[in-house]
């Protein structure tokens, strides 16, 4: 079978065996939850509740602050305690609605499509039966039979589909958090010929997407079909790295009779799942920093996003919980959890059995692109795919030595840059040179830092230069 790949990239230790085979467990929220108003790219959401209000599970507590924005929902029933400043994963302060959990599990009424009763009942049944969140149905075929996505979608207008996605507050759940309804409204929908469902999950230690592909394939297909409904001439492609043969097998079987949806096994390599690398691997099209993927005729959605789209379009359920992997060598029981948003990292770590020893590094996300945390107070947002904790911080133990011009960073860069030279330019503050040498094209994947034998923080330096230029541009405007 042909395997798709791109030029550059590295092979870090992936650590996925720690959690890949563990079923998803439902995590019960604690007494206090914090819902950040800015869980996405774009304008922060605007709070529509006030102190003392009672909210229900799945109730909107903040509305979208503009077109490029998304509403925020409460993941528990309880009382609003107030609005406080909290740190997001990257360490910036932003407003958060604090809700005190009353453990009543009172749900706001969802708005499922007519004809979804059988599926909802089955979901209800499995949910009350056990605390595991794997298969609602035994197979993808069975799920598709219950959902009947083709018939259901025929009944919906395009703008109804888009409206349901917008109302559910769905954002890109792979990490960037770009509002999905904006992504799905390109200027010319007819020019889109590929909807890529990104299941490559190249980030080490993260297995949440893998679990979804193995456990809920039928729902993912239904979610993708909802997206395909919006685009007349698009093909759907599940892009999966070949270190997940089980997911490839399950989806290939489930899609045997589908004409317009394909499974593309990709050669395992970091950063396969980065948007531009993925588009390059599957379609051989190049995307630069001034383009949107839609300009190359592609739209990339994460597997978790596809699942959220399914829930939103078919079940009318907003996005207020997600699957999250907690892993790393400091964690007693690495797990995949279905986590309500707003839960703090400390709570999740506790549910995973705590730490073997105090970790030196706690990362929101995986070790390649995640954000190092200064404490345990971070909260789960729509974009939190993982928490990783390591006993030792490798990076702080490395001593930075002189660049020997070995070119490993050049070979590793998926954007075809010369990272060592760019880093020199940043250090020497030669910003025009930096820009001339395509410094803005960096996707900050970290492959250069990973491969550097001299231990230089190349990605950090290049990113620093990039941010400086972008900030200057914003200022000039």
């Amino acid at each position: 079978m042909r395997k798709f790949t791109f030029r550059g990239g590295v092979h870090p230790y992936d650590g996925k065996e720690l959690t890949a085979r563990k079923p998803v467990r439902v995590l019960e929220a604690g007494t206090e939850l914090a819902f950040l108003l800015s869980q996405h790219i774009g304008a922060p959401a605007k709070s529509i509740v006030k102190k003392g209000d009672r909210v229900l599970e799945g109730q909107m507590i903040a509305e979208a602050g503009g077109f490029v924005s998304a509403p925020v929902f409460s993941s528990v029933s309880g009382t609003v305690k107030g609005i406080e400043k909290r740190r997001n994963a990257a360490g910036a302060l932003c407003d958060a609605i604090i809700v005190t959990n009353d453990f009543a599990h009172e749900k706001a009424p969802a708005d499922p499509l007519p004809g979804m009763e059988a599926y909802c009942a089955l979901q209800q049944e499995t949910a009350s039966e056990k605390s595991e969140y794997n298969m609602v149905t035994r197979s993808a075929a069975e799920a598709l039979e219950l959902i009947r996505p083709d018939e259901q979608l025929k009944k919906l207008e395009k703008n109804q589909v888009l409206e349901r996605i917008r109302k559910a507050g769905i954002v890109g759940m792979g990490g960037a958090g770009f509002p999905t309804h904006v992504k799905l409204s390109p200027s010319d929908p007819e020019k889109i010929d590929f909807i890529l469902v990104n299941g490559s999950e190249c980030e080490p230690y993260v297995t949440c997407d893998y679990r979804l592909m193995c456990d809920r394939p039928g729902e993912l297909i239904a979610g993708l079909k909802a997206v395909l409904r919006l685009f007349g001439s698009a093909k759907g492609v599940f892009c999966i790295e070949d270190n997940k043969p089980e997911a490839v097998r399950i989806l290939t079987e489930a899609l045997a009779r589908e004409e317009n949806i394909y499974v593309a096994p990709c050669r395992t390599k970091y950063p396969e799942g980065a948007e531009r690398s993925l588009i390059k691997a599957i379609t051989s099209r190049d995307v630069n920093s001034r383009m949107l993927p839609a300009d190359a005729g592609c739209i990339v959605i994460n597997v978790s996003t596809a699942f959220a789209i399914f829930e939103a379009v078919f079940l009318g359920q907003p996005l207020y919980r997600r699957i999250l992997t907690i892993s790393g060598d400091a964690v007693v029981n690495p797990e995949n959890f279905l986590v309500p948003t707003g839960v703090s990292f400390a709570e999740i770590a506790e549910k995973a059995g705590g730490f073997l020893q105090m970790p030196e590094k706690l990362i929101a996300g995986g070790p390649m692109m995640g954000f190092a945390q200064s404490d345990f107070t971070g909260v789960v947002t729509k974009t939190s795919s993982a928490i990783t904790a390591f006993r030792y911080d490798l990076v702080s133990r490395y001593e930075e030595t002189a660049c020997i011009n070995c070119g490993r960073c050049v070979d590793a860069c998926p954007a075809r840059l010369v990272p060592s030279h760019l880093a020199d330019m940043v250090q020497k503050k030669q910003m025009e040179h930096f820009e001339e040498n395509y410094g803005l094209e960096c996707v900050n994947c970290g492959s250069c830092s990973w491969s550097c034998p001299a231990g230089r923080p190349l990605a950090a330096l290049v990113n620093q230069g990039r941010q400086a230029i972008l900030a200057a541009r914003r200022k000039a405007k």
Partner: protein
Amino acid sequence: MNQKLQVSASPHTRGMMTTGKIMTMVTAALLPACVMGVLAFGMHALLVLVFSTASAVAAEYCYEKLLHKSITVRDGSAVVTGLLIGMNMPPQIDLWIPCLGSVFAIVVIKQLYGGLGKNFMNPALGARCFLLISFSSRMTTFSEGKGLWKLVTQVPATTDALSGATPLAYLKTGACFDLKALLIGNHMGCIGEVSAAALLAGGLILLAMKVIRIRIPGSYLGCFAILTLITALVRGYDAPLLYTLQQLCAGGLMLGAWFMATDYVTSPITAMGQIVFGCALGFLTWVFRLIGSGTEGVSYSIIFMNLLVPVIERYTRPVAAGMVRQNRENKRLMRQKKREARRLKAGGGKKEKDT
């Protein structure tokens, strides 16, 4: 939970490769050739290698100690430099000459320009050329082998007939040498250059360990071989293929192509640049060896090309993914601007800003 967490920019993990490991692998890959050299020339050759390596390490240590810099001898680059200098010495050389070469390489070529990664030419080759110019007769007199090969094998008749001449001098006449002797090192030459087979094995080890890429040695040897073959055919030598093969195996070409041209610091970082660099080396070596009056040309070719590395890097900079069209577009716009500026100037109208 009062212990502090470490905060740093991503990525939070690193590959296993370090500069020290790279240098260790290069040293290991050089050892087969050293062993063959010692087998061919005896204990004095071993002493030359030991002295040159030790003096290079000592020079680096003393320099950094005296200037209160952090000591970097542990990264192993001085070992590689010292060993390469020893390998470039005639076997009977007085021991102070390689030591002087090592000190020159480390202090003048490497440290004065800022230490590891900052030197603009290969330190070992710089030292070799310095010694060649300063002590040309000592550096170009090669003694007969006194080592193991002399005892266990019959020296080929060809070398007997041309006592005192290196294979390259012999090849200069257009006649062929003994290929087997060139491969195992049973002939006259520098300590580390005699066994082409051992050097090739070392090069292949580096390739397999992904320390070097095939781009530089491949284009260097390939370009040189093609040009030499054409020359041999044009000049009507007896066995052009064998002649080409012997040109590849003789002299410093194998050592230069696999271990010196591939020196990271003094070769281009871009893939295209490495191929251009290699081809230019092949061409220069061909000019020096077959067109020019001398016999040996590898050292000078590499040093000359070392100086051109910044230029090569500049013109072979890869275009970032998805930027081709934009780049051309930019160039077109620039040309257009220039044309307009020229037109305005020619019109003698208003003063225009420089574009």
